[in-house]
């Protein structure tokens, strides 16, 4: 009995040893060099494959960081701690970056904007913008409200409230997907430290803006007159000067006649005045139907 155990154990051990040696031999003999750093870096990256860095996913970006010397801070979803760790692996200095966030420059929810037509078609902004007129809202510059950006966001940071896209800055990692997907080019990445924004993107004649929306920026420049350092004109639109953003109390100071200049948190609440269905999940396609 003992012999059986010993012999079988011996045989298995011998086979294992021989094969192990064989593997060792082939591994040594036919070795191919790869850089272990790439895998290390890839493990540190968030793995969301959002593409915000401009590479085809986290694995691609990791190899670019190691082999081509790409800047790890190109990943906007990475925390500073992670960046430091990546820098440790690659042996390069960690780049500093300012935390950015996406802002939808529109306050025209369904209940706060004029309707031009009953839109009957695919409930997706990019598809709707192809149809003459583009969606049901009268304003040609405002948020369409069909949630292309919300579906594009890999972090679920955008919510559609009453036909208006609202960004939750605490979830936003500034990957920029929504910026590219918005057919109206309403979304911009701005420093997250700015507490207030001008929620309007209209280049319509001011009289028409008032007709189409309850909170348009009429370009009266009251805010600019209040403090030129904080506010400025950009391509015909009044915008916060994001290199020197004002405090939240600036809104009180200005008393914007239409309320287009608003504190971010309050803007979100205004948009939530009439909450409708929860934001569409990141489904592959819009599925809700619109009846006449």
């Amino acid at each position, binding site marked *: 009995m003992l012999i059986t155990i010993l012999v079988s154990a011996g045989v298995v051990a011998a086979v294992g040893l021989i094969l192990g040696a064989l593997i060792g031999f082939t591994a040594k003999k036919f070795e191919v060099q790869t850089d272990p750093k790439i895998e290390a870096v890839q493990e540190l990256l968030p793995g969301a494959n959002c593409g915000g860095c401009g590479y085809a996913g986290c694995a691609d970006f990791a190899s670019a960081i190691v082999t081509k010397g790409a800047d790890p801070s190109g990943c906007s979803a990475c925390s500073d701690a992670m960046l430091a760790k990546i820098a440790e692996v690659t042996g390069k200095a960690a780049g500093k970056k300012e935390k950015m966030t996406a802002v939808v420059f529109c306050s025209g929810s369904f209940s706060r904007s*004029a*309707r*031009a*037509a*009953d*839109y*009957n*078609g695919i409930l997706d902004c990019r598809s709707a913008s*192809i*149809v*003459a*007129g583009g*969606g*049901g809202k009268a304003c040609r510059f405002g948020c369409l409200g069909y949630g292309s950006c919300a579906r594009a966001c890999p972090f679920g940071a955008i919510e559609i409230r009453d036909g208006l896209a609202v960004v939750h800055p605490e979830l936003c990692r500034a990957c920029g997907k929504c910026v590219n997907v918005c057919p109206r080019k309403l979304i911009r990445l701005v420093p997250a430290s700015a507490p207030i924004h001008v929620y309007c993107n209209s280049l319509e004649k001011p009289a028409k803006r008032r007709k189409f929306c309850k909170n348009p920026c009429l370009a009266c420049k009251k805010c600019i007159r209040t403090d030129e350092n904080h506010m400025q004109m950009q391509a015909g639109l009044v915008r916060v000067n994001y290199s020197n953003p004002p405090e939240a109390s600036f809104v009180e100071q200005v008393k914007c006649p239409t309320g287009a200049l608003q504190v971010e948190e309050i803007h979100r609440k205004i948009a939530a005045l009439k909450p409708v269905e929860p934001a569409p999940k990141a489904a592959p396609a819009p599925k809700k139907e619109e009846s*006449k």
Partner: protein
Amino acid sequence: MSEEIEKNNIALPEPGSLVLSTSPHVQDGDSIARIMAKVLICLLPAVAASIWFFRFDAVRILVYCASFCIFAEYGWTLATRQAATIGDYSALVTGVILALNLPPGAPWWLCLIGSVFAIIVVKELFGGLGQNPFNPAAAARVALLVGFAGPMTQWAAPATGSLVSGATPLGAIHAVQGSADAMAQLGAPDNLMKLFLGNVGGSIGETSALAILIGGLGLMAFRLIKWQIPLAMIATIFVFTGIVHLAAPGLTPGPLYHILSGGVMIGAFFMATDMVTSPITPLGALVFGGVIGVLTCIIRIWGAYPEGVSFSIVIANALVPLIDRMCYIRPFGWHSHSVSALNIRRGEIK
């Protein structure tokens, strides 16, 4: 201008109330519900035949399956908080086809399991109408055959006459396999006539080839099915069993016996042609029908199961995405023969 309009009392459409959509702005008015209703109409001959041959048993099974299917779908939409979809009659169609595929002795719980499996597992779990890769009725029949072989073979003689021999025509094949004479006897003309009319044992709706053929022609007349599928399927079975019969007369009866017996007719016209689970191009439909035909013959002649139509349909359903990939159609103008035609014309001009 607007003041003038008011003066002349000319009414104009109100902007703001207009509908905005892409072209086209008109439709031909057909809908999923109407398609399904037409399928139901085409099922009527087979339903009538089943009731004629199996009397109360057929009525019982039809009512059970139809209502269970409808309840299953309604319950699912209720549970998942979707808009009710029973209005498109697709659950009813599934229920009727499933019923026609059950033996006359099927107990109520068999109908219930089959219906729930067809509607919930095969259709709704995949996302409902249009998303299911497998035909619900065929998959349900397969599931019942595999899981409840006993109750699924509760054959009974039709109320109007006697059996060919054996419990079902296909069971008869297995019973006499090996004897060329017996096979020849099975393929005798009066026997084939019984099969054609449906005066034999079998599932309640599949016995009468005639009734199904009438309904199938109706489907073709309504242009609801691709005629390539039944054609290719029946032709393949005819050729395949024909060759095998000639090569080994003791193995299987002649091709006509195969086509008229079992689920070939109902499978070819009502189950294989399910538009959701069949290829979309005409060429693909031919290939699809051919695959079903070959698989059916293999299972019938050499397999342990006497009937292979449902199995074949489900396997061929699984092949549909591949068939769709292979059998694409070229767009208009893909062949540049027009350019060569012009070259000839150029010669004429000069």
